[in-house]
């Protein structure tokens, strides 16, 4: 019978480094991807992911299985990512006092005209970049909520624990995030209203 993550972490606590290696193999890719989508830089994402594993290892003696292992793991990752994003933003603000920023992040996202046949003209890579940038433009907490909800497929309770908010607050956060994405990705997702006979008008 396969051991659970919690059991493996308890084994790490008992001094079993092979279990730590197993957890590293299992979560290295999800963590690096989550962090990459949060900070939008491969090298920073890898550094932060290494830091997450190091913190897990350092905290092994104090580990108590009070929640799911992934809740604990992604809470560490989310806190590190949020700090990194905020630090980076302040850093960029500091630079902008002296020199104009001209990287792609500062440029407004150009949405293709609605009448264009976007699906025909955008090659796959551009579409992916377009979507990635839309995710990256979300406020960091909304971004974390969407990534945990969509890519990690976590339930609301777990995401709320990671983001340290109530489930109600999380639902509002997700609604605002998906609403922003719906607007930002309008060229990809908008479709005409098809109103049936006798249907009510929007209230």
């Amino acid at each position, binding site marked *: 019978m396969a051991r659970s993550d919690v059991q493996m972490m308890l084994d790490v606590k008992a001094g079993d480094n092979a279990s*730590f*290696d197993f957890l*590293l*193999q299992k979560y*290295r*890719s999800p963590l*690096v*991807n989550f962090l*990459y*989508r949060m900070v939008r830089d*491969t090298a920073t*994402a*890898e550094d932060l*992911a*290494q830091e997450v*594993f*190091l913190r897990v*290892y*350092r905290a092994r*003696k104090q580990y108590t299985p009070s929640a799911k292992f992934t809740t604990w793991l992604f809470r560490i990752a989310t806190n590190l990512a949020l700090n990194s994003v905020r630090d980076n933003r302040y850093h960029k603000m500091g630079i902008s006092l002296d020199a104009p920023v001209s990287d792609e992040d500062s440029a407004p996202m150009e949405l293709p005209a609605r009448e264009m046949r976007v699906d025909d003209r955008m090659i*796959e890579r551009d*579409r*992916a970049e377009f*979507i*990635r940038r839309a*995710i990256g433009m979300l406020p960091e907490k909304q971004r974390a909520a*969407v990534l945990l*909800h*969509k*890519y990690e497929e976590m*339930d*609301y309770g777990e995401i709320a624990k990671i983001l340290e908010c109530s489930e109600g607050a999380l*639902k*509002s956060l*997700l*609604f605002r995030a*998906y*609403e922003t*994405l*719906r607007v930002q*990705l309008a060229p*990809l*997702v*908008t*479709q*005409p*209203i*098809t*109103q*049936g006979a006798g*249907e*009510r*008008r*929007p*209230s």
Partner: protein
Amino acid sequence: MKCEDIGKGLIAYLDRRASSADRRVIEEHLAGCAACRKRAEEYRKVWMALDEVPAIEPSFAFDARVRQRVAAEPQRHWFGWFVPQARLAFSAALLLALTVWLAKLPPSNPVMPGATAQAQEEQDFNAIKDLGVLENYDVLTKFDALSQSAAASMHPEKAQQDDSTAND
């Protein structure tokens, strides 16, 4: 239910996490509202579009770096609890040094040696004791020694004669 309320419930509806009661309410609303149906379809497309973002793979050196950093962690031994943290040890040493230094400082109000201090106290006590007498006018006017010393100060030659007479 209003379209705005339905919009907030659409995410949970689309990812199949809404309760059966909520699902029923939303489905009834969607059946009669084209705008919300459109919005639900757009959310579904957003949801699918997010799958188009490719995942990245950690670099080949990733695992090695993690293991390297883990190996560089200081190992704690069984006597680790006994060894205080460097910062705590430094603070305790600093506090001890400060206490010793303060104890060795000369006092700002030096204490008199025992005998001198006692004499000074007696003198002060007597001065206080005589205050009542000095303030009593009748006593002072009848006090010969004072009247003599006052006269002597006013007529020193006469006082000298009196002295010589007394000596004779």
